[in-house]
C-alpha cells in the first residue's frame, strides 16, 4: 500500500500543479461575476510565452530561467486576458463567446508565431525545464517524507501554498469581500461605492496571470516544448475543478489534486493486484465519471456566484 502511494502521490502532485494555478485563476474571475471559458486559451498563451522565453534566455539566466519564464508568462497572460475583460465587462458581450474567442485567438497566435520565429510547427525542447528535487529536512521524515517530499517539483508546492493565499485574499481581506460582493450582487456593491468595473477588470487580469502561470508550469514541467497540441483540455479540466470545488480556492485545489490522483492511479493501477484486472479504459475515464457523480449528488448543489455571467449595467434593476 505504501509503495503504491509512493508512486501515486508524487505524480499526482506534478500533474495537478498547472490545474491548481489555472483553477485559482478561474475562481477569481468567476467570483467577480465573469465566466471564464478562456482559461484554456490563457494556458496556451502561458505555455507559449514560457517556452519561447526559456529557449531564448536559457543562457542568460541559467538555473533561474524556468522561474523567470513563468513570471514573464504570468505578465503576458495578464495582458492577454484584458481582451476578455474589455469584451465582457466594458462592452457587456456574451462572456462564453468572448471566452471561446480567447481560446481560438491564443492558439492561433501561438502556432502562427512559432511558425514565423522558428519556421517549424513546434519549438525545440527547452534546455532549462523545472526539475524535481528532494525538499531539505522534510524529505527525511520517515514514510511521509518519501511520499510527499522526495523527487517532487517545487512548483507543486507553490501551487498549494498559493491556494491558501487565494483563500486568505478572497475571504479575509476587504478586497476579497468586495470582489465577491461584485459577483453576488453588483448593484448592492455599486451602491456602497465599489467600482464594479474596476473590480471585475482586476479579477479577470488575476485569472490571466494565474492561467499564464498554469500554462507555463505545464509546459516547463511536462511537455518541454510548444506545439498546437501542448495544451489540450487542461484549461477545461481546470474549469471543471472550479465548479467541482464550488468556486472556492481550497475546493478548486482539492478538485485539481483529485484529478491528478485519479489520473495517476489509473496508470499505476496496472501493477496493483485487484485493480489490474479492470480494463484500463475504465480507469482512464474514472476521474471524469467521478466528477459527474460528485456533482450530481455527493457534494450537494454547486452554486455559482449569483451574478456570474451577467454583465452589470449601471442603473438597471
Amino acid at each position, binding site marked *: 500500500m505504501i509503495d503504491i502511494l*509512493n508512486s501515486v502521490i508524487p505524480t499526482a502532485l506534478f500533474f495537478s500543479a498547472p490545474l491548481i494555478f489555472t483553477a485559482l485563476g478561474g475562481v477569481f474571475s468567476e467570483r467577480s461575476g465573469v465566466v471564464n471559458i478562456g482559461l484554456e486559451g490563457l494556458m496556451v498563451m502561458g505555455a507559449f510565452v514560457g517556452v519561447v522565453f526559456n529557449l531564448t534566455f536559457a543562457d542568460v539566466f541559467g538555473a533561474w530561467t524556468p522561474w523567470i519564464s513563468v513570471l514573464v508568462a504570468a505578465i503576458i497572460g495578464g495582458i492577454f486576458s484584458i481582451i476578455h475583460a474589455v469584451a465582457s465587462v466594458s*462592452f*457587456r*458581450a456574451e462572456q462564453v463567446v468572448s471566452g471561446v474567442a480567447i481560446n481560438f485567438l491564443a492558439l*492561433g*497566435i501561438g502556432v502562427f508565431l512559432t511558425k514565423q520565429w522558428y519556421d517549424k510547427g513546434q519549438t525545440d525542447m527547452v534546455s532549462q525545464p523545472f526539475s524535481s528535487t528532494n525538499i531539505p529536512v522534510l524529505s527525511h521524515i520517515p514514510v511521509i517524507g518519501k511520499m510527499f517530499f522526495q523527487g517532487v517539483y517545487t512548483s507543486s508546492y507553490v501551487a498549494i501554498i498559493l491556494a491558501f493565499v487565494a483563500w486568505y485574499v478572497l475571504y479575509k481581506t476587504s478586497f476579497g469581500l468586495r470582489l465577491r460582493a461584485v459577483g453576488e450582487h453588483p448593484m448592492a456593491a455599486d451602491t456602497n461605492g465599489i467600482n464594479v468595473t474596476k473590480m471585475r477588470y482586476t479579477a479577470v487580469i488575476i485569472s490571466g496571470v494565474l492561467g499564464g502561470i498554469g500554462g507555463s508550469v505545464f509546459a516547463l514541467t*511536462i511537455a518541454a516544448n510548444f506545439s498546437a497540441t501542448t495544451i489540450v483540455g487542461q484549461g477545461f479540466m481546470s474549469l471543471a475543478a472550479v465548479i467541482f470545488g464550488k468556486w472556492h480556492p481550497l475546493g478548486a485545489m482539492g478538485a485539481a489534486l483529485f484529478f491528478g490522483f485519479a489520473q495517476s492511479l489509473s*496508470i499505476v493501477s496496472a501493477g496493483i493486484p485487484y485493480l489490474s484486472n479492470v480494463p484500463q479504459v475504465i480507469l482512464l475515464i474514472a476521474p471524469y465519471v467521478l466528477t459527474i457523480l460528485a456533482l450530481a449528488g455527493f457534494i450537494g448543489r454547486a452554486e455559482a456566484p449569483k451574478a456570474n455571467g451577467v454583465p452589470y449595467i449601471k442603473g438597471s434593476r
Partner: protein
Amino acid sequence: MKKRNIFVLIVLLIALTLTLAACGNSGKTKDSGGKKAEKSGEDADYKAAMVTDVGGIDDKSFNQSSWEGLQAWGKEHGYSKGNGFDYAQSTNESDYMPNLNRLVRDDYNLIFGIGFNLKNDIEEVAKQFPDTEFAIVDDVVEQPNVVSINFKEQEGSFLVGVAAAKKTKTNKVGFVGGVESPLIQKFESGFVAGVKSVNPDIKVDVQYAASFAAPDKGKIIASNMYNDGVDVIYHSSGGTGNGVFNQAKDIKQNDPDRDVWVIGVDRDQHEEGQVGDHNVTLTSMVKRVDIAVQDVANKAMEGKHLGGETLEFGLKDEGISVAMTNKEAMTDDIVKAVEEWKEKILNGDVKVPKTRDEVKEYEKSL
C-alpha cells in the same frame, strides 16, 4: 445594439486568427502555385505531390520525412518546388479533400496522402479520378489506382528490443504506446519479441496512454515505470513520448549515475534526449518514409503500374533502420548483437511477429 457590435468584433477576431494561422502554412504553397503557372508543362512531364496530415511538413516526423523524400526525388530529376513536385498543407481534417482535389486539378500524376488519417479521403478521390495515381502511407486503400505504402515496424522494433535487452541491468524494460491499434501493436509485438529473444526472463511492462498528444500521461507512465525498476523505455506514442523523455531527463539530471534510457521512434530522437553532458536516448527505431516516397515516385515515373498493390518497406529496402547516434550508450557488444539479429531477419531465419498472438507463438518457439 452594442451587443451585436461586439459579436461582430469577436467573429472578426476569430476569422483573423484563423486566417493568420492559415497564412503561416499556405502562403508558401500559393507562391509556388504562381511560379508553377508560368513554367508548368515546360520541363516537368511527370509531376508528384503530397498532402500532409495536420502535422505539416516540419513535424519532425513522417510528414517531414515524406517531404524530404519528395524533394530528393525532385532533385534527382532536376525539378524544383512547384515545378514537378509540391506539397499541400492541411491545417485540419477538413482540408484533406480540397487539397487532394486541387492537386488533381493541377495535373499531378502521382499524389501521396501522408498518414492513415487520409485513408477515407484518398479512397473517395481515387474513385472520382481513376486516371490519377495515388499513394497512401501507413494504411491500405484497395483501389486499382492507389498504392499502399506500409512499413515493417515490427522489424525495427525487434532490433531496438534486442538493444534494450542488452542494455538493461534490472531485467525490466517498458513499452509506452499511444492509442492501441493494429499499427502500434506491430511496434509492441516486435519489441517484446526482440527483448525475449535475447533473454526470455526479462519482464516487459506494456502501457498505453490512449492518446498521441498527452505528454502529461506519458510522464506519469514513465515515472511509474522507472520507479518500478524499469531502466529502458521504448515509446511509440508521438507527442506523448515527450513526457517520457522529460521524465528520463529529470531523473538523469538529479542523479547522473542512474541508468535510465529512452528509445525513440519514427526518426532519430537523439536531440530530445540531451541533458547536460548526458544523453538518455539509447537508440531510435527509424522509419525512412523518405526512402519509400522516393522509391514509389521513381517506380511510378518509369511507368510501372503499382496501383492496387500494398508495398511493405522493411530492413531489406532500408525503409526501417536503427539509429546508432549515441556511440557511448550503444557499446560494441550491443551493436554486434543488433547486427547479428538483423542478419537473421534478413536471411529469413527469424520471422518477426506483428500481433500479440504471434508473439505468444514466437515465445514458445524460443
